[in-house]
């Protein structure tokens, strides 16, 4: 498969009070193939949104770089790439400008990118509004008249309007009712086929991910701890943190196996992450080595890599 997006050793740091630094994303490398859906999972605060924002061009990486369609993204290549990378946010209530009619909202990326005429943009908005399953008269109405699920559909239509190749979806379902979630999920699957899209699908919930994605990347405290094909990851997670995340997922028809219990405590602050393996303070398998040395990400097989000194299933 050909690479669509490459993330090369990206770190994102934020300055904090007292001259300290929040290490939100630390040396992450990943790639997304054309037509592929990559899930980015991890607890809240693990740096998923920050990485997603970097991919969407909303947050410049502190170090490292991005590649899109084989071209390194720089100040001069970003403007053209922006129409091909779009973003959908978590909160459908903050994602639409309350003072804009839906047709303008959907056509906005086209307007900003100066694509087409006012007439063709309106036609495109009408086309998309039907595709995402909203009535045509939605075009002339305002966001406050729609429910959360409908607004998320509008946000998806907006992301689709400039015919992107990659959509960063930052927890697009977690603010919705469960009954609505599957509808929006199905819509995302549907448009992926018709539009030949790749997704960077951010979620803190592995259960959602199971239905949609091809590969899963697990983030902990800003670091990539495991990346694997969906099937491999769900069948045999290699990182103790991934295991804990999987254990937290209630699944029908599957006994909840407990391997040494779920993880304890809370995620440490990214202001001063633990030494060595950042997970060692909560890991049931931790040894002295884990506190001393940072594990590198290494391939266990063609489809699975892990950053752990003592990965599961290797003993």
């Amino acid at each position, binding site marked *: 498969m050909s690479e669509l997006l490459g993330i090369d050793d990206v770190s994102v740091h934020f300055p904090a009070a007292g001259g300290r630094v929040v290490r939100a994303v630390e040396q992450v490398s990943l790639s997304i193939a054309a037509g592929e859906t990559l899930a980015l999972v991890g607890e809240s605060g693990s740096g998923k949104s920050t990485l997603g*924002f970097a991919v*969407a*061009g*909303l947050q410049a990486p502190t170090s490292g770089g991005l590649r899109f369609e084989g071209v390194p993204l720089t100040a001069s290549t*970003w*403007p053209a790439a*922006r*129409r091909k*990378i*779009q*973003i959908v*946010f*978590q*909160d459908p209530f*903050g*994602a*639409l*400008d*309350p*003072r*804009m*009619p839906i047709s303008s*909202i959907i056509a*906005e*990326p086209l307007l*900003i*990118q100066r694509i087409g005429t006012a007439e063709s943009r309106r036609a495109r908005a009408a086309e998309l509004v039907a595709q995402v399953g909203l009535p045509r008269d939605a075009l*002339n*109405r*305002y966001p406050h*008249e729609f429910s959360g699920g409908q607004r998320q559909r509008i*946000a998806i239509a*907006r*992301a689709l309007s*400039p015919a992107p190749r990659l959509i960063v979806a930052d927890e697009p379902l977690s603010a919705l009712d469960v009954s609505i979630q599957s509808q929006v999920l199905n819509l995302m699957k549907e448009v992926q086929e018709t539009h030949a899209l790749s997704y960077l699908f951010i979620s803190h919930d592995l259960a959602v991910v199971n239905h949609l994605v091809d590969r899963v990347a697990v983030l902990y405290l800003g670091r990539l701890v495991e990346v694997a094909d969906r099937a491999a990851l769900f069948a045999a997670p290699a990182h103790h943190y991934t295991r804990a995340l999987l254990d937290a997922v209630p699944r029908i028809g599957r006994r909840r196996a407990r391997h040494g219990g779920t993880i304890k405590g809370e995620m440490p602050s990214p202001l001063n992450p633990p030494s060595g393996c950042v997970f060692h303070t909560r890991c049931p398998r931790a040894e002295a080595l884990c506190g001393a040395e940072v594990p590198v990400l290494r391939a266990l097989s063609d489809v699975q890599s892990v950053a752990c000194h003592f990965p599961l299933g290797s003993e």
Partner: protein
Amino acid sequence: MSEFADVAIGVWTLRWRRFRRHRTGMASLFILGVLVAFVLAAFPLQYFMGIDPDVTDLFARFDPPSAQHLLGMDEAGRDVLIRLMIGGQISLLVGVLATLVGGIIGVLVGVAAGYFGGRLDGVLMRFTDGMIALPLLPLLIVLGAIDLTKLGFSSDFAHSGAAGFWRIVVIISIVDWTAIARLVRAATLQIRERDYVRAARASGGSALYMMGTHILPNIATPIIVSFTLTVGRVILFESVLSFLGFGVVPPTPSWGNMLNNAQELVTTAPALAVYPGLLIFVTVIAVNFLGDGLQHAFDPRSERTP
């Protein structure tokens, strides 16, 4: 936009309904309407009844009210009523113009500081803090005392009535923009982090596009309220400066400079001291209540007020 008119009206109908329930706000709107009609009545009075606001008549000094001159004559034998009307035009015009100019400065500074943040924000806000800290009136007096010829204006212009008018608009607006700047900055900071702004940024929207399309329309409400309250304050500034002799200069009347001589005349002709001040007072209080009413109407969470 006409096809969306029904929705647009929705918001404004709602606001109008809320505003209508605000008794003092409604009363103020009515009073302001009457005041505007009053100052505009100068035109028929001047052109149909032939009353000239500038012609002096030393035999008619302090004449009591008559059918021809309803409020009598002033110390130079001029019709008091028409001077009150024309003075009102000037005072209201200064109030609105200086508010607009200062308001635009404040909105620009506030949006820029809030949107770009960082060092620009730091510099602009330190500057604004510095301005807020100053005692405004003495500063305005110094600005009002500036000799325009030293700035390169011709002597003719410097002593003309137009110069007096524009000078006061300019000096008030360069001093009184800080409140709006702070308000707009705070509102911008909030809107800037909304996801719809982020989405537009991800598509490559320029800073100007962002401000014009997403930020300003969404902070219009506090701006409108703040502009209203500023009009009241500016009218007070104008009256004070003109009263002290640094604002609108005679023979052009303004409510402020009509009180110029009133202090010496307070014994002989107290009415001359009462009318202009009363008009300023009524105008400003109505404007302030109007601002209060707008605030109430635009803010769905606002408490019930009389």
